[in-house]
């Protein structure tokens, strides 16, 4: 198919202002996450063919019908904050469909039935801001809360630090309006009903499908009353072992925990560097410094009994009988602005680490298959210890932070990858995964499969399960036009298969 013909058709559907082939738009819409890969594979382009910003479902239907007949790939894109190469174009003439420009409206807020109807381009923070006016919120908060959009959250079943308490995005999606690959429009679930067992749970199937099964045009989300009181606590033990002993004690307590995070000294350094910058710039007025200790926990309590809960926690965590060998440093934060700064810094702790370092002068690649693994929560310490030893053997210095109660650990291993050390890093990655699987874990708890992790799925689930996934894809998108060759259900691109590496962010 000629590029010019596709371009003209897209303009016919959406108008010239909403179709672009300008390189700047194409770079900005997706291929920037391939900085590392492009340095290795100089003759491969990771650029979409077209950027389209549809205004409504009718335009999307027309694009889908046209693309399906002509086998033109479409990638539905929200804020491009995904971390698995989900929206990286790998096929010629890919249509990058961006919802942020037009399809960004909250269509309905129903407090009586506790739901909202939104378009995919609604930003998470904006929805929260609007709901907060009525003391409501949408609880599935990912680390990318500052920038992500609801469409992307649903596409990736986004979750984050508070998921052990509030659940993941899937738990809040009551239903969807979806444009299928052939342009058919379907509705799943019931926006006003919390419960329904009528038929297959298609909503759950589409949530987390990473744009491979359909294009969301409306999303029905369950919302909840905003928890009122909150208090935060930093607890820092010198030893990681002691910190995890403390966590076992916390598990036994009846307290309303909203967050319980483990951060390692390098993460803390990044957080503190950001606090220092913000203080200097006058963005925050109160000094915050998280103690740089190996066993540091960040805790947030909510609910009407938060003060009593705090007392219980403080008493247990500093119990001289249990923690005489390593008494913790504890700091309580009551001021809501101060707490916001603390948790903001934790939210962007990943990119924040860069502030405490010199800017890199060349491409770095993260080891994607170790970035957001999860193991059974009781095995976290074991995993961290084994991963640390392995990392030392391979000369890798990973940064670790994690959501303790759901076993999700972010092991961030940014490497300057060269042709020479590729093999070694691939080996390291596979050995970390061996540890994860031996402990009964998963390769990805939050970030998704996307492009990078798909060749590991068969190891995690087995061939028979993967065949079912492939059959679903084949049934719903027989021409493989929706975000093709991602999620392990298409033809896995050779570069990914060979290296198992890619840059995330």
């Amino acid at each position, binding site marked *: 198919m000629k590029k010019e013909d596709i371009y003209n058709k897209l303009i016919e559907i959406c108008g010239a202002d909403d179709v*672009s082939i*300008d*390189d*700047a*738009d194409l*770079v*900005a*819409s997706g291929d*920037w*996450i391939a*900085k590392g890969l*492009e340095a290795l594979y100089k003759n491969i382009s990771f650029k979409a063919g077209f950027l389209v910003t549809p205004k409504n479902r009718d335009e999307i239907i027309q694009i889908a019908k046209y693309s399906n007949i002509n086998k033109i790939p479409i990638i539905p894109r929200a*804020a*491009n*904050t995904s971390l698995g190469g989900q929206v990286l174009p790998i096929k010629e003439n890919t249509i990058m469909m*961006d919802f*942020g*420009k037009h399809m*960004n409206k909250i269509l309905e807020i129903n407090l009586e039935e506790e739901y909202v109807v939104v378009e995919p*381009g609604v*930003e998470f*923070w904006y929805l929260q801001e609007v709901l907060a006016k009525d003391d409501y919120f949408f609880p599935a908060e990912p680390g*990318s809360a*500052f*920038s*992500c959009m609801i469409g992307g959250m649903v596409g990736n079943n986004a979750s984050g630090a508070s998921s052990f308490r509030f659940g993941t995005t899937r738990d809040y999606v009551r239903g969807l309006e979806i444009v299928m690959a052939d342009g058919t429009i379907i509705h799943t679930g019931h926006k006003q009903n919390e419960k329904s067992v009528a038929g297959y749970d298609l909503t759950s199937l589409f949530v987390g499908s990473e744009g491979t099964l359909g294009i969301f045009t409306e999303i029905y989300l369950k919302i909840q009353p905003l928890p009122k009181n909150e208090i935060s606590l930093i607890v820092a033990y010198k030893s990681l072992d002691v910190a995890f002993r403390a966590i076992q004690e916390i598990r036994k307590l009846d307290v309303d925990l909203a967050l319980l995070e483990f951060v390692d000294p390098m993460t803390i350094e*990044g957080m503190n*560097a*950001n606090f220092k*910058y*913000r203080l200097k*710039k*006058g*963005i925050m007025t109160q000094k915050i410094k998280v103690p740089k200790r190996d066993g540091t926990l960040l805790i947030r309590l909510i609910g009407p009994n938060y003060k009593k809960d705090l007392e219980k926690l403080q008493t247990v965590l500093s119990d001289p009988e249990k923690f005489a060998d390593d008494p913790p440093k504890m700091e309580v934060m009551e001021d809501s602005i101060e707490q916001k700064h603390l948790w903001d*810094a934790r939210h*962007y*702790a*990943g*990119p*924040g680490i*860069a*502030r405490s370092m010199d*800017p*890199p*002068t*060349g*491409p*770095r690649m993260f080891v994607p298959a170790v970035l957001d693994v999860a193991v059974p929560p009781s095995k976290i310490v074991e995993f961290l210890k084994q991963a640390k030893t392995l990392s030392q053997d391979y000369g890798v210095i990973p940064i670790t932070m994690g959501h303790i109660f759901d076993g999700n650990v972010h092991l961030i291993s940014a490497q300057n990858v060269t042709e020479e050390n590729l093999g070694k890093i691939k080996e390291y990655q596979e050995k970390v995964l061996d540890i994860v699987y031996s402990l009964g874990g998963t390769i990805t708890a939050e970030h998704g499969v996307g492009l990078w992790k798909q060749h590991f799925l068969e190891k995690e689930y087995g061939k028979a399960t993967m065949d079912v996934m492939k059959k679903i894809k084949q049934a719903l998108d027989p021409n493989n036009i929706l975000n093709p060759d991602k999620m392990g259900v298409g033809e896995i691109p050779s570069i990914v298969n060979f290296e198992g590496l890619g840059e995330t*962010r």
Partner: protein
Amino acid sequence: MSEEMIKYYYLCNACGTCRQQCTVFRTNLIETLTPRARVTLAGELFLNKMGITKKTIDAFFSCVLCGICENSCPSGANVLEVIKATRRYIIEEGQAPDTISKIFEGIMGDKNIFLMDNEDRMGWAEDIEDKIQNKIKQQSEIGLFIGCQESFKGSLYNIPESLVLIFEKVGLDFTLLGDDEWCCGAPYFLMGVSNEKVQEIVKHNIEKMKELGVKKIVTTCPGCYLAWKEEYKKIDSELPFEILHSTEIIADLIKQGKLKIEKGHNKKVVFQDPCDLARHSGVYDAPRTILKSIPGIKLIELEREKADAYCCGGGGLCKASYPDVATTISKNVAKIYKDNSAEEIITACPACFDNLINGIEGLENLTVKDIHSLILELIK
């Protein structure tokens, strides 16, 4: 092309935190106009992975250089450094918007951004000729640097005029360069350009101030202020002047009891922190000291204040090439102020004043007032 273009290319994780507050992106929600996109595009241009396109030019020249992105960037990317370096590259490649070339032509030829006869620089003082005729090119410790906008744009004449009358009221001596004042060069600095010709202009202004025995340079324009404070010092590291914004000197006069505002101003006001004065220079208190000394005034502080304050959209020379973007920003900001019950927006910057006048169009019971004019009204 300079290394600055790629300095943060590998650092930026494209996390998108900058999207939430980017002044320009929020007006149109086009990803190409986000700070993270600009950092990426600059690096791609540097690496010759792409060429300059129309949207590339839009991305770099529509930026208002407010710097909010730098506040929010967790990784510490100095985005403005990248944008200025890339603007310079695009200019060198001859692909800058025509409006920028015109401004440069004006500065080099006529010594002002409006391509006007520089001998008419004192046009702003026509109504107070008697008060300033013995001030022009006279020896004094205080040198007022008026700036192009206030010198040539009739709607802004009242700003320097008011300052002069305030100084007269408190008996503060000062001098003016008259037609010896040349453009401060800020438009070049906003484009990352500081070549020999620009340095000649800078040196001219410095020499003229030195000749008059000036010790303190006072500007009402935060753009000129930042140019003197940051860029002039880069060119002349031994710059023998204290650089002050007019609000700083007025706040000092109030603190010393030399200026007392007794008349009341019973309004709910919001102060528009000028980016060049506030976020980029850290001057937040002086204008607030002034406003808080006015009886009856109610100063509203928004949740986003000071370093995080909203930009009016009038900076970075965005307005020269993308007036619609600048106007949309100002309308959005004015609406926010209105929603926060403000009755008046107080400005301390000619660009803020000029742009917010457009911003309040259609909004009832919301006015814009320059801080100097307000003070003068209340001490007359």
